[in-house]
């Protein structure tokens, strides 16, 4: 259609491929049954986001973005997965397959939701100066799939990982439409994420101490 006119370039292809990788990892997180592998997938996804940030920085000569990429690498690829894996190791229990629905059903639902997001954003008059504009639709789709993870998985680790990967999606969105955000603001976002991760970690521990499980199946007391 309209974009078929645009000449694809190498930069564009690499950027598209990385964004797609972020989305595909999200789907993999949705279906992977072990929380541990989910966290590893998250680390991998963060790596893709880092690469994307570095790519944009190199392409447009944005020094700030190199800093962001480095911070992302340290925080999201190393620190955050480390924190969660430690919680998991200390908990000593494994929740295998906390899917609320069958995997195929979940994937299809998430697919429908992400397509919805993709086309909704596609109909908006966005134009990105830093990345191919469809990356926006893909990252919004990724955010919606992250929502599906939180909704459709029933253990605290998956839900937390879902939230963190949602944040990855937002990072990509901001790379696409707001690559010029001031460094101080971006850094504030990132450190906020780290604080959130620490709190998630504490609450996961609290949850495990009280209920002796990582499943959220026991969280049904409060109603009405």
């Amino acid at each position, binding site marked *: 259609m309209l974009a078929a006119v645009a000449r*694809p370039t190498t930069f564009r292809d690499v950027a598209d491929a990385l964004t797609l990788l972020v989305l595909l990892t999200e789907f993999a997180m949705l279906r992977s049954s072990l929380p541990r592998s989910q966290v590893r997938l998250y680390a991998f996804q963060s790596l893709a986001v880092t690469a994307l940030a570095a790519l944009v920085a190199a392409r447009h000569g944005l020094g700030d973005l190199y800093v962001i990429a480095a911070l992302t690498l340290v925080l999201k690829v190393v620190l955050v997965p480390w924190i969660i894996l430690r919680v998991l190791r200390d908990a000593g229990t494994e929740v295998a397959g906390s899917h609320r629905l069958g995997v*195929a059903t979940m*994937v299809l639902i998430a697919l429908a939701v992400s*397509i919805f997001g993709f086309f909704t954003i596609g109909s908006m008059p966005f134009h990105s100066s830093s990345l191919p*504009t469809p990356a926006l639709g*893909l990252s919004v789709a990724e955010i919606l799939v992250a929502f599906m993870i939180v909704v459709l998985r029933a253990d605290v680790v998956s839900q937390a990982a879902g939230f963190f990967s949602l944040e990855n999606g937002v990072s990509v969105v901001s790379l696409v439409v707001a690559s010029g955000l001031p460094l101080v603001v971006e850094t504030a976002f990132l450190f906020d994420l780290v604080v959130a991760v620490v709190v998630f970690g504490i609450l996961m521990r609290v949850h495990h101490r009280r209920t002796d499980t990582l499943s959220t199946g026991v969280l049904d007391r409060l109603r009405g």
Partner: protein
Amino acid sequence: MAVELAPAESQALQVLTIVALAPLVSGFTAHVEARLQGRRGPRVLQVYYDLAKLFSKETLVPEDAGWVFVAGPIVAFACYLLVPLLIPVLTDFPLPLGYMGDIMGGGFILGLAGFSVALAAAETNAPYAQLGGSRAMTFGALIEPSILFVTFTVAIITGTDLPYFQAAASRASVAAALRPAHLLAVLAFFLVVLNDTARIPVESPASTTEFGMIDEGRTLEHSGPLFAVLRWGSSMKQLILYVILINVFTAPWGLAGSERIGSVLLAIPIFIGKAMAVGVIFAVIDNSFSKLRLFKITEFMAAAFLIAMLAVLVSILGGG
């Protein structure tokens, strides 16, 4: 001055290549697979010997089976003969009959083949054959959306759904072939081929447990020449799918650029070499993964569909 082949002759040569060399590729794949598992394995030409042996035997037809039992394998074989007319097996320029059908048309013909085999299986009244037939049709229906979307993707990128032109578009630039949408489509089609050629993780090709069988189960009641036709047909089907995977999507190089007899004949070993390389990849996959439980196969289908769908999305809005 080199001898030129008439277009009709080239076309006949394409069909002939598929018919004659499909057992070779199957045998080679089985051989490599056995080697990877540390076995000596069957000889590369074993499939030919098997076919020859089967053709020399008598045909047994179950008591209450009708003419469909006999017609099914033959119709399927005819279908497999037809498809190579439409796809670029040896030449990179469209041959006259190549315009008969687009890639959907080829898909329909393959579908008819599967259908007739399933009908023949249903005709036997034998539980395992019927089970195989119905499973094959069910999973075939489930994988169908992925095939459709792969076709759409490639059609969107190249602006046509004639296999020859798609191959030409893939060949036009390496960059174009490496575009994310194209890569996703290839990946999705790869999964489709895994399913349609009855490989792991969908079905274990060397399996002898009838409960896990899908495609293999259909042929349990056939014997003698009819069984030979079925086996031959299934190895042809495999090679046809390899052709589409290689010569349309991934590596449409080494095809004959003209009708000179030398270049057309040279294209045959090149093509078989590529097909064998793909066979090796499939053999490696067979050895690296385990077969999915029957009820988990839908997850495999969902994954294929997901990737195909993403390919369409990216190609529609991204142009790339």
